[in-house]
């Protein structure tokens, strides 16, 4: 039996999530007393980087330009069967969430998506995830012999141990032609996508008007952060929908979340309160967000934000 982890590659290189996934899978395998194996679609130039987490075997599937998420899932399920995998791990993102269900059905597996802890075997197979959009944590027992899970980003911090050599095996399993034809992929260049970002600068209705955003963009740029926003500013079209964080937007858990001119409504907090460190800039001392913050600045954001940007620039230069 083994643990199988789906390694995400994009344009021939590892996606950032793959580091955390490889580390998590090796740790899980150690807890379960099983071997660990990765599966990747296509060539991946920096796959040896995963050796630092102790991953030593990767099955490589030949890409098929006419494949789709269903046929990739079928091939991954085939690898899982060949490796007698009892635990299959995906990232809890647009890739993992579209492959996991199909793999789980093919393997008659139980599923748990969005886990944020390593499994435990002290009392059956137990594992936890955040529920109610971050307002609580639930520990689940999984009863099925085969389990398929997805790992919420930024849940464990990958630590490198001894560097091992990763053996790549070209799998005999083929990705069949699919029925879904992707005709276009558009990505915004440069910034780290919000769900994977470690640093996030977010702004809300306190910004008063969309024209005022350059101070937010500048702060984000100096910090190397991704921008986010509260729901009302996305709803009125000041910012794109994909920036909307919270209970009905993207749920994130970055290392640093800077909230600017956001009151901290319960639905907003739900999606961001798992952030490691929260800084709140708001002119209202009664703003509920201060209760969820580590650091607070109670002042006019149009005064504070440029000062923070300048201080960070000075810090980065030294």
């Amino acid at each position, binding site marked *: 039996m083994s643990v199988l982890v789906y390694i995400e590659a994009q344009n021939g290189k590892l996606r950032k999530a793959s580091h955390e996934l490889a580390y998590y899978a090796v740790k899980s395998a150690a807890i379960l007393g099983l071997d660990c194996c990765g599966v990747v679609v296509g060539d991946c130039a920096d796959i040896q980087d995963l050796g630092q987490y102790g991953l030593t075997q990767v099955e490589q599937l030949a890409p098929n330009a006419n494949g789709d998420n269903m046929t990739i899932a079928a091939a991954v399920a085939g690898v899982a069967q060949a490796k007698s995998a009892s635990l299959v791990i995906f990232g809890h993102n647009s890739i993992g969430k579209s492959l996991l*269900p199909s793999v789980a059905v093919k393997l008659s597996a*139980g599923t*748990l998506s969005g886990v944020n802890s390593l499994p435990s075997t002290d009392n059956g197979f137990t594992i936890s995830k955040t529920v109610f959009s971050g307002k609580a944590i639930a520990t689940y027992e999984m009863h099925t012999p085969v389990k398929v899970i997805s790992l919420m980003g930024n849940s464990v911090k990958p630590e490198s141990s001894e560097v091992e050599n990763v053996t790549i095996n070209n799998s005999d399993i083929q990705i069949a032609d699919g029925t879904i034809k992707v005709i276009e992929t558009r990505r915004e260049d440069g910034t780290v996508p919000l769900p994977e970002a470690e640093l996030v600068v977010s702004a809300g209705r306190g910004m008063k008007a969309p024209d005022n955003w350059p101070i937010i963009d500048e702060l984000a740029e100096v910090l190397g952060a991704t921008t986010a926003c509260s729901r009302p500013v996305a709803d009125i079209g000041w910012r794109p929908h994909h920036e909307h964080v919270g209970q009905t937007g993207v749920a994130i858990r970055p*290392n640093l979340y800077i909230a600017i001119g956001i009151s901290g409504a319960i639905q907003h907090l739900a999606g961001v309160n798992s952030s490691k460190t929260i800084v709140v800039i708001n002119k209202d001392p009664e703003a509920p967000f201060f209760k969820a913050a580590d*650091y*607070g600045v109670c002042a006019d954001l149009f005064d504070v934000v440029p000062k923070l940007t300048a201080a960070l620039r000075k810090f980065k230069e030294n």
Partner: protein
Amino acid sequence: MKILVCISKTPETTAKITFTDGDTKFNEDGVQYILNPYDEWYALVRALELVEANGGEVVLGHVGPAANDSIIRKGLAVGAHRAVRIDADPLSAEMVAKQIASHAATENYDLILCGKETIDYNGAIIGGLIAAELTLPYVSFVSHLEVSGSEFTLTRDIEGGVEVSKVNGPIVISASKGLAEQRIPKMKDIMMSKRKPIDVIEAVSTDPTTTIIKYSLPQGKQGVKMLGPDDMDELVRLLNEEAKVL
């Protein structure tokens, strides 16, 4: 077009989350319930728009006990034509998907829509499980959808961008923000919804896959450290040395 919209019941977004029975059960005392926002605002409304443009009917699919009929009525008030309730407690994602799939297998739906995720258990995989059970194509996190004949053109949200694809129906999709605009039912719609049929069907038997054994609340913050607007160098120092996030 015949469209199935899968709907879930979730606690209202401001509900206080507490637990009972030694933190093993969600405390429902005083909790108000709503239709899951992704199901109601995006999946259901886009289904209604498609049927308004092309003819057909929108059926709501729900797995839950009779007590949930009041939630189903909210979807009927928004405009769905009728509903099918599979009479069982929703126990896990697999179980719910098997129930919906076993119903859908006997009907000829052109499109099955789910919300992107529920705001209580945040699983985001039920649509995919239904598709896999029915061996239909599945496209997740759809923020734009057009139909021409049996061909669907879909825009799907991915990290940092979008992916546009084409596929022939029938298909299963999950709806994300942008797919449609929320509709607020009028008094007349709410009255009419009371006369729309909810067919109750028996659940198929399934084996348990997962159970929640314990709940806990996240660790609260230690208290906020306040700084003045002119202390930004100090804030940067704290973020670097104390919080270690820079």
